[in-house]
């Protein structure tokens, strides 16, 4: 499927490839290309990060929360996490590969480490509890994403950790 998208006067041509529930997009500038699009989307930015989209007659809003990677993007009532990659490095980084190789366990939110449940060198199973972080008086147990060995423990019990901070590594 090809889609022509006009964003505040600039035109883009989008190739959409559906692969099951995931979709891949290719985007090109189309300033000097003949129209092959199956649809036309008109987009205007109404406020910073808020876009009014008309896809044919269909109207919806797209909101881009911030420039983090992946970007948090809302289209209508749906939230998408969108990461960008050059076409050249597109291979091999699929979701299924996520639990292969060393896995870093990161703090999901700022908080305090109140318990470390494993020791360095310990064998763990996927789903086994590794560490407990407390925030807003609630305790969150983080679990191992894979079967493996705890290689490094950076977290210290009682310490405050920032969001995204690496707590330990499972290989």
């Amino acid at each position, binding site marked *: 499927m090809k889609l022509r998208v006009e964003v505040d006067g600039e035109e883009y041509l989008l190739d959409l490839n559906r692969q099951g529930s995931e979709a891949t997009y290719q985007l090109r500038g189309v300033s000097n290309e003949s129209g092959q699009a199956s649809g036309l989307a008109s987009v205007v930015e109404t406020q910073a990060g808020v876009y009014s989209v008309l896809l044919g007659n269909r109207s919806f809003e797209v909101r881009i929360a911030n420039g983090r990677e992946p970007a948090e993007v809302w289209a209508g009532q749906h*939230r998408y996490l969108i990461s960008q990659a050059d076409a050249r490095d597109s291979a091999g980084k699929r979701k299924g590969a996520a639990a292969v190789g060393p896995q870093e366990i990161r703090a999901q939110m700022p908080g305090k480490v109140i318990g470390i449940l494993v020791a360095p060198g310990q064998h763990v199973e996927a789903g086994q509890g590794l560490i407990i972080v407390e925030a807003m008086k609630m305790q969150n147990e983080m679990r191992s994403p894979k079967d493996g060995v705890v290689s490094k423990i950076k977290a210290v019990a009682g310490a405050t950790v920032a969001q995204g901070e690496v707590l330990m590594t499972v290989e």
Partner: protein
Amino acid sequence: MLVANRGEIAVRVIRALREMNVASVAIFSEADRRALHVQMADEAVPVGPAASSESYLSIPRILHAAKITAAEAIHPGYGFLSENAEFASACERAHIKFIGPSSQTIEQMGSKTAARRVAIAAGAPVVPGTQQGIRDYDEARRTAAGIGYPVLLKAAAGGGGKGMRRVDRESELESAMRGASSEAERAFGSGEVYLEKLVDRPRHIEIQVLGDEHGHLIHLGERECSIQRRHQKVVEESPSPLVSERPELRHRIGEAAVRIARAANYTNAGTLEFLADQPGNFYFLEMNTRLQVEHPVTEWVTGLDLVQWQIRIAAGERLTLAQSDIAWRGSALECRVYAEDPLNNFFPSPGVIAQYTEPAGPGVRVDGGAYAGWTVPIEYDPLLAKLTVWADSRGAAIERMRRALAEFHVSGITTNLGLFARLLEDESFRAGNLHTGLLDEFMRTFAERSATSDDHDEAAVAAVLAAVSAGQKKIDGPTANGSANRWRSEARQGLFR
């Protein structure tokens, strides 16, 4: 008047004060300098560091703030010191009017076991169980055997699900008791727990009462708060669908509530919580001697402003409404919008709010405490806003709530807005077949049902805009040899909003 609270409830009270032409004083901790209630108040006084124990729970600091601003009264909101008899008593000694009942009443009704005794003496039904804290495991074992499993362990000193444990068999009792007691100790400073019969598929129904300081007390009908996560209410409504089916129940539960409140010499606004089973039997649970989070649903259906009445009553005014003056119109629903992740066990999700848009229009009320750019602090309850709606029927209110939820946009942090949107499509919920376990049951299938959207067009445009917004403001056209400056955008759809 000083408002000894923060967030949406402080904003709510400040609005009432402004409408009454009373100057408002906010207090704030170091974490809350940028909080909305500070901006909205006429005056604001810092009361200490981020930790509640040294700020919002510090009686001397709050009284000092009242003194330097010459505040004549203190509204405690809910939570924090609102049910602290010592605070009420300290206010009384300092000749500052505490907006609520007397310290004696708070003390008496604040203990669940004592409140239960009052209820029994007033002839109101209570859940079978112990009337005081359990001394040891042996006593617990004998009592539980007498009542019959399943039983519920609860903290004597507090509420909100802390120190609460369901026990299905004797083998689980000992460790559950230990857990409940230590949780209660941490949360309320007292590890005392008690035991009661667990009602199957219970409904949480509560009665709002309002009494003046001249002996006149009435009830304002019920709220049903059966939709809970971790024993915390998240959706509330009035009327209760159970009461709509059995209209005589309002009168019967309301009467029981009024009897209990009168027996406690209750003044000001208070709420009596009951468990009801599906056939309509009801049992007194406990009393909240303060304004309730979910008071807006009662305000919608009765047309009364509870906060303004609290203040007038505290000023010594007479409650000029007879029980027969109270009329209920239509149906109101509330959704509590939390910064939390329903798919991660409702774990809090503090952080910077990137975008924040509240719904508006007919029959919609937002009591908020947040704004775009504000950082939801890690230290406090992550309630962002209460969204309440009213319509002439429960069905219309549900549709209105869905419309309002779709207009409510929060990004940058995770919220439970998407959960509500789905819950309101749930058949049991829509039919009004509520019970306190409904949300847990719903959550079991929530993730799967939420996982897919096949709206590839929408996703495609979102991907383009993400790229454009990320600085690829201009993408070159194809070069002469036909190769384009390409990039690939991968969209993983979030499981829910």
